[in-house]
């Protein structure tokens, strides 16, 4: 299974301590120089029991290049099974987001720098391709020339942006890059009349908010890329090449230096590492990958618009990298799945019924996982149903016209909900107040003593259904952004290392 598992490669995981050594040590005796987390790590590794634990241990033994190759081969078969444009398009988008996540992973996951202008580098790459291969300036350069030029130019831009904050702590870098991201959008938006300090006439560089259209498709080795299927393969090649490069770099001297920098910059500096140069290098490397991905994105869409590179995309990419766990490839895939399913379910003008089923299913699944004795769970669910009917009965007795409003959810589910959820004739204002109430209730829920929680959970669940039916399901495109924000907050508070990432200690 692992013919190339050479013990000398840096890819193989560090040898595990022989069994029996760790439990034999007296727990009361701390080892000098060894962090508590490190000491308990061996113990937790032994905790992988059962078939899942065995599979996980096996998986960790496979060298990473083999996994990458396996992934590449598996992904390469995807277009053979489907000719549906939608799935191919989703596949290409997956690869593009994963490429972006790989680049961001270097900056955030390896070097520990917060790059909030990352999307601007993506946009710079896209606009770079757009200007060199479109009727905008009547330039139609060969693709193989554009790719390295744009990648290097974007990396150089990243270098320049990070340069002023090189002497400063990471937070300043965050603010400079965030500002740079905003500036990029604003300059591109106003770039249809750029005049040099107001002295010359306005030149049309970026075509402003209308974007640049009619871009050339990729032209590689004498073939013009026409179909989505060929783009899929090109994206896959990009991904494998970048993945390989990232892998090689991360296992190189530089990669190890980046990680040591992330753990403790001060100690790294004392060990003689050129901290500032390393930071700049990581930053430029990430920016270069974003630029390269931008060219692919631009030629795939055959047009670029400034609004494609705004803050929501930044938050989305961060959510992808962070949800799964920074620094892990599997985490990136998981994060992409979560974010993309959320976005696809809550597309503008999508059928709210699908989303409603999923939302209710997720709610119940969460309760299943979180609430242990079955009797308690049953009581809470039954209580919620009874509570709903009681509220419905009371409202119908007091003001009968306030139960037959129009909810967002239609179909059989909607008809069933009508008998349970109160639907005011004018759902807008009550829905807004209920949303505020729901936020307050959820916050209170996290603070109250555990024995009161089941009682508070009942109205919370009912209010969730109410807000969903009166407000959230009406505006899916805003709801999904709210959900991404909530996911980030909850995840950072519950598991800062991400869903599949491993915890690491920060030595202060």
């Amino acid at each position, binding site marked *: 299974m692992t013919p190339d598992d050479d013990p000398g490669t840096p890819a193989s995981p560090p040898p595990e301590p022989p069994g029996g050594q760790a439990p034999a040590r007296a727990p009361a005796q701390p080892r000098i120089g060894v962090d508590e987390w490190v000491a308990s790590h061996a113990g937790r590794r032994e905790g992988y029991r059962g078939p899942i634990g065995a599979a996980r241990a096996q998986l960790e033994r496979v060298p990473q290049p083999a996994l990458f190759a396996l992934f590449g081969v598996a992904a390469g078969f995807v277009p053979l099974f489907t000719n549906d444009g939608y799935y191919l398009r989703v596949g290409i988008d997956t690869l593009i987001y994963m490429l972006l996540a790989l680049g961001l992973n270097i900056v*955030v996951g390896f070097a*520990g720098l*917060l790059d*909030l202008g990352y999307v601007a580098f993506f946009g710079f790459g896209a606009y770079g391709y757009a200007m060199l291969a479109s009727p905008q300036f009547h330039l139609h350069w060969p693709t193989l020339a554009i790719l390295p030029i744009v990648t290097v130019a974007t990396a150089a831009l990243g270098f320049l942006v990070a340069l*002023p*904050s090189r*002497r*400063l*702590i*990471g*937070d*300043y870098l*965050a*603010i*400079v890059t*965030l*500002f*740079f991201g*905003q*500036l990029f959008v*604003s*300059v591109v938006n*106003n770039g249809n*009349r*750029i*005049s040099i*300090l*107001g002295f010359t006439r306005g030149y049309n560089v970026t075509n402003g908010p209308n974007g640049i259209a009619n871009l050339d498709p990729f032209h590689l080795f004498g073939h013009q890329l026409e179909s989505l299927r060929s783009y899929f393969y090109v994206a896959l090649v990009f991904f494998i090449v970048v993945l390989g490069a990232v892998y090689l770099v991360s296992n190189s001297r530089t990669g190890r230096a980046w990680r040591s920098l992330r753990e403790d910059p*001060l100690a790294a500096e004392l060990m003689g590492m050129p901290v500032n140069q390393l930071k700049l290098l990581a930053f430029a490397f990430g920016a270069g990958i974003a630029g390269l991905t931008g060219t692919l994105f631009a030629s795939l869409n055959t047009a670029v618009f400034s609004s494609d590179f705004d*803050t929501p995309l930044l*938050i989305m990419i*961060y959510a992808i990298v*962070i949800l799964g766990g*920074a620094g892990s490839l599997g985490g990136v895939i998981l994060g992409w799945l979560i974010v993309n399913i959320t976005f696809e379910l809550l597309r503008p003008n999508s059928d709210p019924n699908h989303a409603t089923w999923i939302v209710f299913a997720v709610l119940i699944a969460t309760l299943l996982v979180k609430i242990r004795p079955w009797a308690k769970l049953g009581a809470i669910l039954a209580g919620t149903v009874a509570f709903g009917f009681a509220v419905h009965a009371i409202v119908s007795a007091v003001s009968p016209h306030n139960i037959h409003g129009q909810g967002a959810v239609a179909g059989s589910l909607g008809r069933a909900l009508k008998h349970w959820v109160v639907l005011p004739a004018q759902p807008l204002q009550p829905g*807004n107040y209920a*949303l*505020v109430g729901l*936020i307050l209730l959820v*916050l209170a829920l*996290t603070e109250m003593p555990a024995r009161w929680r089941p009682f508070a959970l009942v109205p919370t669940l009912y209010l969730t259904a109410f807000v969903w039916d009166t*407000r*959230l399901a009406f*505006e899916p495109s*805003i*709801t999904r*952004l*709210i959900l*991404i*924000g*909530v*996911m*980030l*907050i909850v995840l*950072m*508070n519950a598991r*800062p290392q991400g869903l599949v990432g491993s915890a*690491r200690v*920060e030595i202060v």
Partner: protein
Amino acid sequence: MNLFITELVAGIVHGSVYALIALGYSMVYGILKLLNFAHGDVYMIGSFIGYGVLTVFGGAFSPSIPIGILLILMFLSAMLGGGLLGVAIERFAYRRLREAPRIAPLITALGVSFFLENAAQLMFGANYQSYNTYSWDSNSSGLGVLWRNGFTAPGHVHVAVAQIIVVGGTFALMVGLTLFVSRTQLGRAMRATSYDRQAAEMMGIDVNRVIAAAFFIGSALAGAAGIFNGLVFQQIQAYMGFDAGLKAFTAAVVGGIGNLPGAVVGGLAIGLAESFTIGYVSSTFSDAIVFVLLIGVMILRPSGLLGRAATQKV
């Protein structure tokens, strides 16, 4: 000369709003070393709270109570609401992350900001809402007449009462904050916590209380800034907090982060730079000039205009 004075007035007014937001940024950063990206959105929420109070009392067209009382009511509710929102954000989003890796609270802050912006858009809609205080002109009370006439600065530049309120209010709040931080016991505890949190804790200071107080005061100032913005510029919108927060944080950095007078100096510098760029060069470049200012300060004086160079402690 006329243009110069117009832009000077606009810059000071704009800068005052930035300065008020920057004060909150600076206080929180000084104590927690946290970039609270959600601070700009507290300012936005404050603006909408004021709008709500204005609407409840008959709107700008027919206020059912005297304008002066209405203004005071708007300020009080926006400051209280903003302050409570700030405390809630700290309590529920940031407190658990104080010992987490540095990047975790920053990403949480982005999440909170994103959440507030979009929740506000869901509730208030994507359109601009208008304070529309022009109509107070028709009010015949003393303040109504004053509101109509305004003042005339040298060079026949019209200065509206709202602009005076903004600059005067900012000045008053700033003086109050300075007195609070330098004279009261809680203010002293705040300075101690900002200087060295662990040592302060060992001296018996309730650090949680100090941090909550810093969030309350900073967010209340942001709420007041939201009202100022509504009074002078009339237009408010759910996404306006992001840009304002960014400019205000830049102001805090330019002035020297953690330094309260520095935040005000930085805010005024940014406001003036922006308004003179709009007046003399082009409105396209107003963001760019602020960015250049930020980069310039970072290269030439990394600790900010009024800040002292900090040594990194182990």
